[in-house]
């Protein structure tokens, strides 16, 4: 459905490289995730796909239409949700939705069934001004406005950033529903745990793709022996583990730290070292890496 070939985009006369030779293939009906932090290039890529920005080089096709030449055609068939709230703050939910329906030559009534799973959450508040909605509601409204004209492709730029966990979960449930209706969805997010809910993902950092596959595929490909380590005085633990020459990397991961050893080193070796340093009651166990671990590893080696 989407074919992105060698897209490059720079700003400030080449001083800032937003995208550096990006290649991505997205199949029809896929739920594709672009995972990466701020400045990775996610928004730039979305804007290119939405035909709002032209790449410096490379091509991108959506269902065979070129983003530069055939932009008018593409614009009719995509639903776009930009990175920040882009609806009219002084219009109500209903007025916003009516407007975006009318602008695409349709009405809310015509597509009510399509948007109902999402719209039903906010319909009771349809006369409230968009500026007075909570983050979760704004996001649902923006999604409805993107869907109301029956697009075949949804481009959602960081729809869940900063939103409360409940709404985030609801949002991803809704995306699953939409996928079942046959929509192709491209989502970007900085939350690594959301990566798991996608069919396939691309890890993006500083304009480059670190890897691209299904979440399981990526995890399997970069199978790293990984250990979690826990104990009292976590900060002191972190410093001490890092001071051990056998540690390849050690990062805080909330409740525990995730540690990787140099070849040949094992957990008992570390335990002994820690005991010598006066750190007792340490729990070390082997764990399976998750997307965030892999992302960090790839970041480490990218530099």
């Amino acid at each position: 459905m989407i074919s992105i070939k060698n897209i490059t985009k720079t700003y400030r006369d080449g001083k800032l490289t937003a995208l550096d030779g990006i290649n991505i293939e997205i199949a029809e009906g896929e739920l594709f995730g672009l995972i990466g932090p701020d400045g990775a290039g996610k928004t730039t890529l979305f804007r290119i796909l939405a035909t709002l920005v032209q790449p410096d080089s490379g091509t991108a096709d959506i269902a065979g239409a070129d983003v530069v030449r055939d932009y008018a055609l593409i614009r009719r068939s995509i639903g776009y949700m930009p990175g920040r709230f882009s609806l009219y703050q002084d219009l109500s939910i209903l007025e916003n939705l009516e407007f975006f329906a009318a602008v695409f030559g349709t009405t809310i009534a015509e597509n009510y069934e399509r948007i109902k799973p999402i719209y039903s959450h906010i319909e009771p508040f349809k006369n409230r001004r968009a500026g007075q909605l909570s983050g979760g509601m704004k996001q649902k409204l923006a999604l409805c406005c993107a869907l109301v004209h029956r697009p075949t492709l949804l481009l959602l730029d960081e729809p869940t950033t900063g939103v409360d966990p409940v709404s985030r979960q609801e949002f991803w449930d809704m995306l699953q529903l939409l996928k079942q209706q046959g929509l192709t969805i491209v989502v970007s997010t900085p939350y690594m745990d959301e990566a798991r809910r996608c069919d396939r993902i691309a890890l993006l950092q500083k304009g480059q793709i670190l890897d691209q596959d299904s979440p399981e595929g990526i995890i399997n490909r970069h199978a790293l022996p990984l250990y979690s380590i826990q104990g009292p005085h976590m900060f002191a633990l972190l410093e001490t583990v890092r001071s051990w020459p056998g540690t390849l990397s050690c990062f805080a991961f909330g409740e525990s730290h995730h540690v990787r050893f140099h070849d040949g080193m094992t957990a008992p070796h570390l335990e002994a070292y820690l005991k010598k340093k006066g750190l007792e009651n340490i729990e070390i166990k082997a764990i399976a890496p998750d997307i965030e671990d892999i992302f960090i590893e790839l970041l480490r080696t990218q530099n």
Partner: protein
Amino acid sequence: MPQILKTFSLNYCAHKTKIQMSNIIEATQLTRVFGKFTAVDHISFSVKTGEIFGFLGANGAGKSTAMKMLSGLLLPSSGKAQVLGFDVYTQSEEIKKRIGYMSQRFSLYEDLTVEENIHLFGSIYGLSKAILKEKTDALLVQLEFVDQRKTLVSNLPLGWKQKLSFSVAMLHEPQLVFLDEPTGGVDPITRRQFWEMIYAASAKGATLFVTTHYMDEAEYCDRVSIMVDGRIAALDTPKALKTQFEADDMNEVFLKLAATSNLKII
């Protein structure tokens, strides 16, 4: 991999007396309204000296507003609050002098260089030229920014800006530091480096008050409060909250909290 684990040497200046109180922040029924909208709804809590206190919640829950009231930037509509022993209504200037503040939205001047920013904020907080020069050099080494001394802040990547911004907030060695969403949008490594800087500051005796919408960062805090629609829905150590709600992580705590409580998130 750059390790930002050099210790910060926080030498308390002679004329500053160390606060001996146990609660460095005390808030009672603190409220703030904007017209018809209640941003902060009668919250009561206290922060112990030396804690890393996490203020969690979604965007719009009221975290930033609460923080602004405690740092003397915004007057409350009602309720009481004492910060470092000073009243937020009548002694906000005293508070501002003694705290460090870092906001995600604005922190440094984009069209000034790294060095110029450090100088500017240092002078604002009354650091003498000699001390400032010494600190600037030390800071640049710690952050491994020595080559970026004369770089315009606008040309720095976001993660670097955040780290610099935090360091600038710490320049005058405040005992209480407010950090408003300091890790928004940065890559996972920078995010962790940032928390390591927070740990280091705490190890030296500073109290840190951090707001964030990343639930997993709650784990790094001594105690957390979760704000929903302007009210505090839960307040305890992460461990206690996970036990209370039988959850594996803070994200789950929030989900279960939302499900069980009367708080409807609209």
